[in-house]
């Protein structure tokens, strides 16, 4: 086996199929998207090369920057919610009765498809017959808002199901990371008289730091490119109040038939995601990583 693995030709052979596949369905389309962004194209017929016009238009497009702002806001909220998830995971990882059950409960939203979640929350937010407003009315709130129709509320109303959808995923990751910490460390700290808060801060947090960094990147990039629930629940409306970059891209390309500009938006989205990833890696860079032993 060692012989096979040290053979350069064999390595190439094994790597090739998936490399070709990923080139064909990921990297080549990305390059093509960048190229389409340089053209004026309605999706049918011939393209007209317009150079950087689309990208220039993008820089001045207030709708795009508004949608970028919305995406960024979602990223900020995702980051804040990560702290909550970590706290929940710490509680669950402690030897607690019923923790196992709770872990499963938190995970279930992740198993539902986005569209099912969207339908569920559409019912919850329904302005007259939804649970939310029925509840508010029974609590004595007069004329509760129509959550998905108020431009000032709609974005936050959408954040709740989006964060809820991914809660189980992050809790599970943190839970696994916390379970990996040898119990001997915790026991030693206890003997030295550390409180559970001190244990959480001084021992558990540094030890799951690497995992934390990964989830920060996942949450930020995931938020920036987010599409599903917003597309189904509001389609970016009303009046673009819940438009995010991906939904704006979709709308431009597939509804306005402006594939050139749509591709430019897609490419800009890619660059923004790459920059965000790079910045996060830089900011969270540490010289020495703490290890167990």
């Amino acid at each position, binding site marked *: 086996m060692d012989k096979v693995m040290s053979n350069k030709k064999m390595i190439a052979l094994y790597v090739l199929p998936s490399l070709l596949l990923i080139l*064909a*369905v*990921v990297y080549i*389309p990305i390059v*093509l*998207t960048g190229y389409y962004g340089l053209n004026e194209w*309605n*999706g*049918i*017929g011939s393209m007209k090369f317009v150079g950087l016009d689309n990208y220039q238009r993008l820089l001045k497009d207030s709708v795009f920057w508004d949608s970028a702002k919305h995406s960024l806001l979602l990223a900020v909220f995702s980051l804040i919610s990560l702290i909550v998830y970590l706290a929940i995971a710490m509680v669950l990882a402690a030897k607690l009765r019923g923790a196992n059950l709770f872990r499963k409960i938190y995970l279930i939203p992740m198993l539902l498809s986005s569209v099912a979640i969207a339908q569920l929350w*559409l019912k919850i*937010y*329904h*302005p*007259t*017959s939804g649970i939310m407003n029925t509840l508010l009315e029974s609590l004595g709130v007069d004329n509760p808002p*129509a*959550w*998905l*129709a*108020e*431009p000032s509320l*709609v974005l936050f109303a959408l954040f709740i199901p989006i964060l809820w959808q991914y809660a189980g995923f992050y809790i599970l990751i943190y839970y696994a990371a916390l379970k990996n910490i040898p119990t001997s460390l915790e026991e030693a700290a206890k003997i030295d008289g550390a409180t559970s808060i001190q244990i959480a801060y001084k021992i558990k947090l540094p030890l799951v730091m690497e995992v934390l960094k990964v989830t920060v990147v996942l949450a930020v*990039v995931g938020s920036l*490119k987010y*599409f*599903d629930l917003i597309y189904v629940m*509001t*389609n970016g*409306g*009303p*009046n*673009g109040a819940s438009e995010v970059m*991906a939904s704006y*891209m*979709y*709308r431009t390309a*597939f*509804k*306005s*038939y*402006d594939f050139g500009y749509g591709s430019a938006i*897609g490419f800009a*989205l*890619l660059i923004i*995601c790459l920059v965000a990833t790079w910045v996060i890696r830089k900011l969270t860079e540490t010289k020495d990583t703490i290890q167990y032993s």
Partner: protein
Amino acid sequence: MFKKWTVLLLTLCLVLVAAGCGSKNENEENNGGAAEAGAKVTVNFMHLWPEGVSAGQNKIVNQIINEYQKEHTNVTIKQEVLDNEQYKNKLKVLSASNQLPDVGVTWAAGFLQPYVDGKLFAPVDDLLGGELKDKFVAGTTEAYNIGGSTYALPLEFNIAPVYYNKAIFEKYNLKAPTTYAEFQNVVKTLVDNGVAPIALGNKDRWTGSLWYMYLAERFAGQETVAKAIKGEESFKNADLTKAATEVQKLVDDKAFVKGFNGLSNEEAKSEFLNGNAAMYLMGTWELPNFTTNEDIPKEFRDSVGFFKFPAVDGGKGNANSWVGGPGVGLFVSENSKVKDEAKKFVEYFVSKWGEQSVTGAGVIPATKVDTSKLQLPQLYIDLFNEMNQASSITLFADVQMKANAAETHLNMIQALFGKAATPEKFADEHDAAIKKGS
């Protein structure tokens, strides 16, 4: 990013699939060429009536195809069925790779334009002069006419009446309004009694567009509206501005259900079906739900009536003018290898579709049908007769405009209803988008 990759991947797959189909066609064609005339031909037909979603239409399509194949034993019609949105996307992908089916379904005006510009659809004027001459309801084929040639033959025709719940109207002693003042009174009475007057799902935006188009027609007249959409008249026209202002006045009067800008058309429809809202402005494609659909309680179906959108005092339009438009039509691909066979099939299909679709699917066909011999629900017959008396038809705005302008129109409709745009801004944005001409 992931979403985009999926879309691209999907596109890629479709292209591959399309390329596969295409090369097969060529092989068949080569084989066919070797044999003498009258040899086997395959006509590929792509449509959007899947069995699950449009059972009625699907059955009719299969019937017609079977009959046609029986009469023309050398012809095989190969169907490809997709859902509405997928259909639109696939048609686009196929056209980019020049692999359109021989016969397919298209929409009118704005949707048709790029395909005609790209010389992808064949003119079907010759069919209009033949067997199908004078068979179409006046004004239906015009929507498929671009630059003097007709590029598709319409199958359906829809107009939009205001449906209302007779039971609710009776309860509050209301009558179907015949003037706009009466209509305003109906709205006011319902609001005073805590009933939502109008079900509107403006998340979908074209639903609100119907209201605006009616008000625009009633205030400014059909010609002015048509000119404005063509770019020959400004939307700043005093009458058109009045219409936009009136929309916001209706919103202020709480005429529409709560949260209408966040509701989809389906959700709004269920408000009407549940008796929570008293009125619902929608196309005649909803007729089966109010007449024959067994899933909806009979009690409700019997209590649905309709009225014409009332004329406005001093307005230039009249109550016999409808907002509506042809639904889908059939096109023949310009690059089809079996163009003649395809045209013959289209001719046959359109001539059979009329009567069968009335009884089988409850839609209003674009061809003339003698309803006196058929057993039909009264609501249907009444609407059918109204349509034959129509003085003019104002086409659905988003169908008429080019894709980009249509998108602006729809966005501005939502903004206007949501009071995020003033009637002035509404007019400016429209003029700018239409002038841009894409």
